[in-house]
């Protein structure tokens, strides 16, 4: 085990996988940094600090810095994947899915199906997402609900450096297109990371905390919010079973349903706006398949049906907080 930041776990994993498999190619805007400048390539090394050193080591044909053209980036990843390569593309902010959705949704996600199962399309599209940095309406969104809805894509959301390594390795070595979502506020989070080969299968949630009163389901940054809420509630004698989904597609239905059999009470914490969200997705799952276990109305703690606001006071109110989660837990506990 080595302690490192989540961003370092990603950089290291990219490095290790490129070393292991010469078909792995990375591409994206400024992933090299300094192309065409006096400072030269690698003078900056990637906006998020997740690709530094790769260009010097693997060269321009495997580490491809691109113009600002997100559709062409994702399309190129698709073309690389169809040609037998394993591209890892970076979209700087998940909000930019707006300018490349077609390539994700109508191309990458559907090739295998449209072509009758006769091809694989092993592309990983990494993107930073989420609010908390006062980056306002176009640089703060939690795009995972939208992407989870799209058949053909897998959606992965690491919350710890170890998970980042284990899940990214699985993503790169897999045969399906994967959206790999990195919360901006988690890049600097530190944690122990296993050395050597380390893979985490998709669709297996992580139990963050055990408890028998209420099930709290969360993913990404919201896991820490759920955890903080649960820690506080323990003092009140309320035991929360906190589940980190790790991947929202596929989703670990069993982890949720098994927990609901014990608790009968569900709170979902979701950074997305409420409509057609991951929160409602899980409510749908529970209300179909855990109906007889449920003892109280499901509580969905989400962002409001608004864009992400800029000012600190507004963004703070926008985001689900430990307070709101605690209120939701108390509400499901109080229900008679």
């Amino acid at each position, binding site marked *: 085990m080595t302690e490192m930041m989540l961003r370092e776990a990603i950089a290291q994993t990219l490095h290790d996988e490129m070393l292991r498999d010469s078909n792995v190619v990375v591409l994206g805007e400024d992933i090299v940094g300094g192309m065409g400048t006096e400072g030269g390539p690698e003078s900056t090394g990637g906006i998020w600090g997740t690709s530094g050193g790769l260009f010097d080591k693997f060269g321009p044909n495997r580490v491809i810095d691109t*113009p600002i053209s997100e559709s062409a980036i994702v399309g190129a990843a698709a073309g690389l994947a169809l040609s037998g*390569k394993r591209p890892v593309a970076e979209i700087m902010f998940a909000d930019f899915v707006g300018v490349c959705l077609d390539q994700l949704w109508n191309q990458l996600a559907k090739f295998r199906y449209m072509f009758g199962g006769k091809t694989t399309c092993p592309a990983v599209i990494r993107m930073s997402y989420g609010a908390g940095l006062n980056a306002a309406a176009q640089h703060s969104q939690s795009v995972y609900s939208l992407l989870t809805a799209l058949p053909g894509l897998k959606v992965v959301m690491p919350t710890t450096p170890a998970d980042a390594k284990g899940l990214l390795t699985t993503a790169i070595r897999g*045969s399906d297109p994967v959206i790999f979502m990195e919360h901006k506020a988690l890049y600097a989070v530190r944690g122990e990371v296993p050395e050597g080969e380390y893979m985490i299968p998709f669709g297996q949630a992580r139990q963050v905390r055990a408890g028998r009163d209420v099930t709290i389901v969360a993913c990404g940054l919201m896991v820490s919010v759920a955890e903080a809420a649960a820690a506080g509630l323990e003092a009140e004698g309320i035991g929360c079973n906190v589940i980190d989904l790790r991947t929202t597609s596929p989703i670990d239905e069993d982890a949720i349903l098994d927990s609901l059999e014990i608790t009968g009470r569900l709170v979902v914490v979701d950074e997305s706006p409420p409509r057609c969200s991951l929160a409602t997705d899980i409510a749908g799952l529970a209300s179909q398949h855990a109906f007889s276990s449920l003892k109280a109305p499901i509580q969905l703690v989400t962002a409001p049906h608004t864009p992400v606001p800029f000012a600190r006071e507004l963004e703070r109110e926008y985001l689900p907080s430990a307070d709101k989660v605690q209120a939701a837990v108390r509400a499901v506990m109080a229900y008679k």
Partner: protein
Amino acid sequence: MQLDRERLLRAYKNMKIIRMFEERLHEEIKTGEIAGFTHLYAGQEAVAVGVCELLDDEDKIVSTHRGHGHCLAKGCDVIGMMKEIYGRADGLCKGKGGSMHIADIEKGMLGANGIVGAGAPIAVGAAMSAKLDGRGKVSIAFSGDGACNQGTTFEAMNMAVVTKVPAIFVFENNKYSENTGVDYAVGTASDIAGRAEGFGMKVWRANGSDFFDVYNTMLDLLDYVRAGHGPAAIEFDTERFFGHFEGDPQKYRGDGELARIRDQRDPLKQFRLKAVELDKIDLSDLDKIDEDVAALIEAAVTQARAADAPSPEDVLTDVYVSY
């Protein structure tokens, strides 16, 4: 890659296959047996065949909604394609894709595409792959005069220039995007190649009704690209012989326009005229091919009609390799 007799005969045969495939579909669609939207490629045969004759299975192409010609020219199985268009379980895509989504990765055919303009970026990715492999292979994006206005096409051209990959942008200017004329929709008054040049690419132009012009110009272009000079573009002046989709009344056409282009700009007629001048080929050789192709298409339709439909459960398979 000189045009010897064998190659000439094969090119003619491939063009004829496309023509008869499309003419037959035009008839079959009227019976109601074929579902969905179908866009016929007839009239543009010289482009698909002239381009693909110079490629092998490791060279890639990405096609469009009007993809049958590209698929056939790149070597997709005629019967498998017909079955796919009929939506059969053993169609090339198991009935899941249909006319607009035919692909055969083994043949270097990365898919027809229902989204106008989606192909060019994908071709750039395949070109990146080719460059990485370093074996002189190329990747081709076919686009129409309508698709050339889509943002993705422009992004792809710039990215190909920046990354110096062996991508080739083949613009088939058949003068129409659905019901709109190219003079209206392309800001540079129907000059598509000039715009590609503006992106910093070397460009070529050729007569897309003339197989020999297509082939010889592509020979030159491919020399340039395979040598590692980066991307290139070519605009072909061509014609579509049927409507935008099957069922299109084509009211946007001028009086006598269709008759004129079918008479004067038919790649197969022109091939016949020129081929015999070359003294390598007799018309009887070509007539023989016509017969063979007719039989092949007949067999394809017969087999497609007789083939099994997919079973309903198959709707759930092939989404992921594993999930």
